[in-house]
């Protein structure tokens, strides 16, 4: 087990490395650098001014040197002002050492966000916290509802309840966040006026029922159908097992068979599915946060991508890859732990 985890962690580091190289390559394409230079200088800058901005801030160094600097295996040279000969930081809003130093990812420095004009760490970690709250509520809504739907539908296969619930869960898997978000806003914010159609106030004045329900609902609905269907399939399979028949034949009531014998075995598969939902939730987070103007991770990612904020994008991709792979690892370990047949081996 230990060597399995170690190997997986190794693959994880390798994936993160390969992915950051790809992202680094893509954000450093010529058109993207131009975009960055244009947003960072005044809008009427000439071609030469853009070029000199890029050279001055070190964007014209060799690709591998720059990646090494970001990673922290190459020393970052200070920016020398040619007029005074003194070291000036590249961006006013970030500290930078005045002599050559290793300051990259390995030293815990995520770099500098050119869009938000703060260091990436300062921007990204609060945003992650905000997204964490959103995710928590989404999970808290999504998991119990979908498990309940799945168990109720799978308990008695082929009945009217089963068909209705299955139909409902197929429908929710057909509504991506940007569709359900619009429909819910129309119903609950525009027609009924119960809820707030924007979560912008959640960042400043705190989370309330009226500004947070719509984002949570919108995100949860897409996942509910999928998890419910998996739970149903797993429940249907368990209900046909011999030990369920035995329990029924020895005279236990249907409800106690379901609760005591079937449920525990039926919930192993959905656990894996819920864990593997995280990559989807990440996409959902981006859509929902843009739609409801909630200042979290997804919002930072979209803003960073729209402005080609190199360091912020690299930070975002690192975090999302970490989340995806880490939940995969947990799901594998958890599966082995929950399923005695695998645990013994």
């Amino acid at each position, binding site marked *: 087990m230990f060597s399995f985890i170690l190997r997986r962690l190794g693959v994880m580091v390798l994936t993160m490395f*390969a992915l950051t190289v790809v992202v680094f390559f893509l954000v450093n*394409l*010529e058109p993207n650098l131009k975009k960055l230079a244009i947003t960072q200088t005044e809008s009427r800058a000439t071609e030469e001014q853009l070029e000199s901005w890029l050279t001055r801030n070190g964007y014209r160094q060799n690709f591998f040197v720059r990646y090494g600097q970001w990673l922290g295996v190459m020393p970052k040279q200070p920016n020398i002002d040619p007029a005074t000969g003194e070291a000036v930081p590249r961006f006013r809003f970030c500290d930078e050492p005045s002599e050559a130093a290793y300051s990259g990812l390995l030293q815990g420095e995520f770099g500098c966000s050119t869009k938000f004009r703060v260091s990436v760490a300062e921007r990204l970690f609060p945003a992650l916290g905000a997204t964490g709250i959103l995710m928590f509520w989404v999970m808290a809504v999504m998991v119990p509802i979908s498990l309940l739907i799945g168990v109720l539908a799978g308990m008695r296969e082929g009945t009217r309840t089963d068909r209705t619930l299955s139909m409902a869960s197929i429908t929710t898997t057909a509504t991506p966040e940007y*569709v359900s978000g*619009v429909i819910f806003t129309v119903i609950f914010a525009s027609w009924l006026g119960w809820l707030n159609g924007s979560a912008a106030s959640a960042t400043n004045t705190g989370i309330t029922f009226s500004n947070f329900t719509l984002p949570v609902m919108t995100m949860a609905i897409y996942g509910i159908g999928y998890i419910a269907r998996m739970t149903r399939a797993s429940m249907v399979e368990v209900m046909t097992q011999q030990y369920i028949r035995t329990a029924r034949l020895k005279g236990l009531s249907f409800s106690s068979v379901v609760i005591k014998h079937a449920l525990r075995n039926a919930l192993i598969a959905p656990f894996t599915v819920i864990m593997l939902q995280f990559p989807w939730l990440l996409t959902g987070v981006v*859509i929902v946060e*843009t739609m409801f103007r909630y200042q979290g991770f997804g919002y930072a990612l*979209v803003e960073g991508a729209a402005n080609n904020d190199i360091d912020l994008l690299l930070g975002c*991709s690192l975090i999302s890859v970490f989340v*995806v792979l880490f939940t995969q690892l947990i799901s594998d370990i958890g599966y082995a732990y929950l399923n005695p047949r695998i645990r013994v081996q």
Partner: protein
Amino acid sequence: MQLEYLGITGIVLGVLKQFWPVWLALGLVLVVSLTFKKRLGLYGHLFDSGVGVTGILICLFWLFTAMFASVIVTFDPLAQVAIMKGALPGAVDPQSGAAYLFGGDRLARDIFSRMVYGSRIVLIIAPAATAFALMVGTTLGLPAGYYGGRIDSVLSFLANLVLAFPVILLFYLLVTPGIMDTPIPYTLAAVFFLFPIVFFAVLFYTRFKTRPERLYPLLGLTFVLGAWIYAGLVFDADPLDLISISPNQLNIFVAVVFASSPGVFRIVRGLVMDIKTRDYVAAAQTRGETPWYIMLWEILPNARGPLIVDACLRIGYTTILLGTLGYFGLGLAPESPDWGTSIKEASRLLRAQIHPALPPTIALMSFVLGLNLLADALREQSMKD
């Protein structure tokens, strides 16, 4: 000037009337399918369940809408009639006397016509991109599952790499306007579009290599058709000018194929690993068949059930991806009538007006729902066998 409005009955009747070619085509297909139900195999069996019929009806509805879009629409989807700006559903255009059945959007365009034309964009890109993703995923998934070992490790690592990428970030990086200046989209397109040609060439070669009289015509056909489509799509140099794709659409196409082929790869790989332990594969190995013959002619046909179901679901998923692209304003032109872009436009003004938002959302949702229902019915059928 005061606009005249149709009542609710008027709107419903107007919409029903505009869709007449669709009703006609649907009726024809239904009559033919129900008459020859027994002889239609899997397709005929779909008509046994309510879910299957609903799925087929919804999918065919959108298919025919896309085909007859130019007959159905009442206005040019890009035309702006100034007086109809933000008009409510049923408003009558005083000049032409025709009604804006679902109202006008903030740029005074007819929402109904935009929704109908949007189906054309979605129904061309989504199935085509899914087909290419299936080709790429299958061609790579077969050897990964069959040989295992190092090929499997490398290919699986690459697939997981793409799957670990947040889709939105991938799209933002791959579908920015600037990237059209670089060779990246064309290189990717050149690689992806090679897969179908290789796939069919190997498919025919392994089967007919001892029968040249069958092999050469088939190979020739593959290469001629392949080169024609390849030239048209990648180099935009189709000698007959039948196949062409705008750089923007090529870019979207490539990005969508790139994002969804690792999923196909994983499914195919899993299926192959399961099927290769069967006796008929062992029998083929004993006969001395080549590995690629076994993969393409023994394993692949036996994996078709789950693959068809997956293809159905995947077209829906691709539609959702396209909508996501439109929602973030990536790739497609801002005035494009596709559903994702329309949803983006409308959702920004949701406080002021709600009617422009509903037609594209409901259209997208119903199409994906139709595909999901179809996939569900197909799965039920394949379980029965």
